[in-house]
């Protein structure tokens, strides 16, 4: 007997739940052959606001985890991505990537998670420390997470681009509201399903789908977002810079680049972590 096709409703992952947009709006998404694939929600600024609330709620608990534990959780994410390698690669090829490139992208995304998992209990040694002062005091600099950070993922590569921006932000205890690739949101939806079954607490990473034109202005002006890590064109940068100046938030741009650039060693490291921590310096008298 022929089976009826079981089609999927892709839903963004926000606050530990799979949501539809509050607006109810969707857009049809076609795969690389032009065949209808699914209706993808078009999230609105209200969805963004709700996601920020969810991220803010998750923030203190995530930041309180030990660095070691955050590293374990990121590593576990890498393990899970490795186990679902073919599924993610298939999701990428379905929307136009060549098979070899898709596998390279998934492998690089896994490695990137492992890379930042390793940083979790190490960046502090490099970024913080005991400062020399001429007095009977200790002077410490410690790194603290900034809070809720917005991520604007590039159109390409949809999985590696998103993860390369998200991982260094959450490793230090920040939480993230991310906007997935506009033309190819499906890998980000799939990533949400991975996050939901990982050890990452609900609300630490929230992934929205939708149109950049709808959401970039709100990312720029929302005062509760303390920073933005974005791939953006010149017009968007202007909107983001103006909004960020008004709401005093830090903005880090990553250049829009093809897959090859994201695969490089230089695309990862300490700098993306440093961009979203707040150094706190304290004085403490040396005990008798």
């Amino acid at each position: 007997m022929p089976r009826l096709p079981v089609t999927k409703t892709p839903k963004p992952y926000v606050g530990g739940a799979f949501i539809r947009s509050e607006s109810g709006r969707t857009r049809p998404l076609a795969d690389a052959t032009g065949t209808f694939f699914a209706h993808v929600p078009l999230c609105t600024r209200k969805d963004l606001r709700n996601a920020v609330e969810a991220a803010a709620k998750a923030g203190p608990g995530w930041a309180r985890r030990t660095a070691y534990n955050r590293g374990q959780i990121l590593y576990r994410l890498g393990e899970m991505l490795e186990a679902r390698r073919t599924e993610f690669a298939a999701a990428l090829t379905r929307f136009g990537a060549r098979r070899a490139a898709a596998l390279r992208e998934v492998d690089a995304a896994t490695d990137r998670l492992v890379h930042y998992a390793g940083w979790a209990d190490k960046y502090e040694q490099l970024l913080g420390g005991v400062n020399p002062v001429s007095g009977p005091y200790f002077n410490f600099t410690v790194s603290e997470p900034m809070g809720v950070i917005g991520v604007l993922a590039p159109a390409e590569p949809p999985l590696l681009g998103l993860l390369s921006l998200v991982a260094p932000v959450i490793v230090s205890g920040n939480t993230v509201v991310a906007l997935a690739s506009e033309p190819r949101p499906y890998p980000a939806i799939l990533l949400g399903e991975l996050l939901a079954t990982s050890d990452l607490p609900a609300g630490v990473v929230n992934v929205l789908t939708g149109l950049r034109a709808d959401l970039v202005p709100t990312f720029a002006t929302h005062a509760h977002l303390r920073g933005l890590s974005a791939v953006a064109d010149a017009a968007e940068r202007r909107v983001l810079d103006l909004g960020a100046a008004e709401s005093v938030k830090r903005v880090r741009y990553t250049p829009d680049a093809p897959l090859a650039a994201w695969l490089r060693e230089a695309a990862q490291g300490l700098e993306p972590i440093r961009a979203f921590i707040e150094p706190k310096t304290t004085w403490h008298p040396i005990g008798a």
Partner: protein
Amino acid sequence: MRASSAPPALRRWFAAVGPVDRVGVEERVAKFTTRSIKKAAKVQGLKLAVSMVDLTTLEGKDTPGKVASLCRKALRPHDDPAVPPAAAVCLYPAMVRPARRTLGLRSPVRLASVATAFPSGQTALATRLAEVRRAVADGADEIDMVINRGAFLAGELTRVRDEIAAVVATCGPAALKVILEVGELETYDHIRAASCLALGELRPGDFIKTSTGKTASNATLANTQVMLEAIRDHYLETGVAIGMKPAGGIRTAKQALHFLVAVKETLGDAWLTPARYRFGASALLNDLVRQLEKERTGAYPAPYAFSEAAESY
């Protein structure tokens, strides 16, 4: 519902005030959350809600200093002068004097005190009345009393009624809010019965109030609706207009607007005033001010851009 197992006096009272259609009430209140209130109407609603807030702190750790800052927050919820002051502050009796010192004698913010062995009400009537007398003497404009739930559920309706009447008499010029503690009354029939019982004893300008905020179950649209309908029936029958105060669990501006929709569509515009409708809340005021700021600037503000919510001092 549970009417068949209720004591005979309570059963007779159920018959007198009429039953509540549980499904009907819940269907009705589900509709209140579907109204679209935007832009100018939303700003008006938010400001109205601010002016209806009974800014509350009822904790063992309350201090005169904390109460003083609460009073200042009630007088001036936000630096934007277009935001009105809150309706009242709601405190324990021991905090009435320090609050009166901060508010002064001619304050736009009224001073409400819980009394009658809040929240349980489980002491002798004489003690409870003495507490009311003292709170009024210390300068309370309004008294929030709790009804004797034990007596009510045991069917001792005359006792409940007499106690409310005694508190009304003791209040003198102060307005009275009768807390039914709906979470402990368990059914809509009980809530309606208790509402009608209290309404009969109250003067114009008095209120009935859902809950103490000290139990797990607080004000919901549904149990508020049962009480609003009791107020409406009482008004149509006697012409006496009694106010309503939902308390506990109302934390967001959106919820507050839903509650206002319920009032407007059940009792009409005459009840859309702080003289007849209040919100008992601590965190709500901050969210209202935050949403007003959002409407003013167009950007979502961070919660820490406002003075701390009363609950987190």
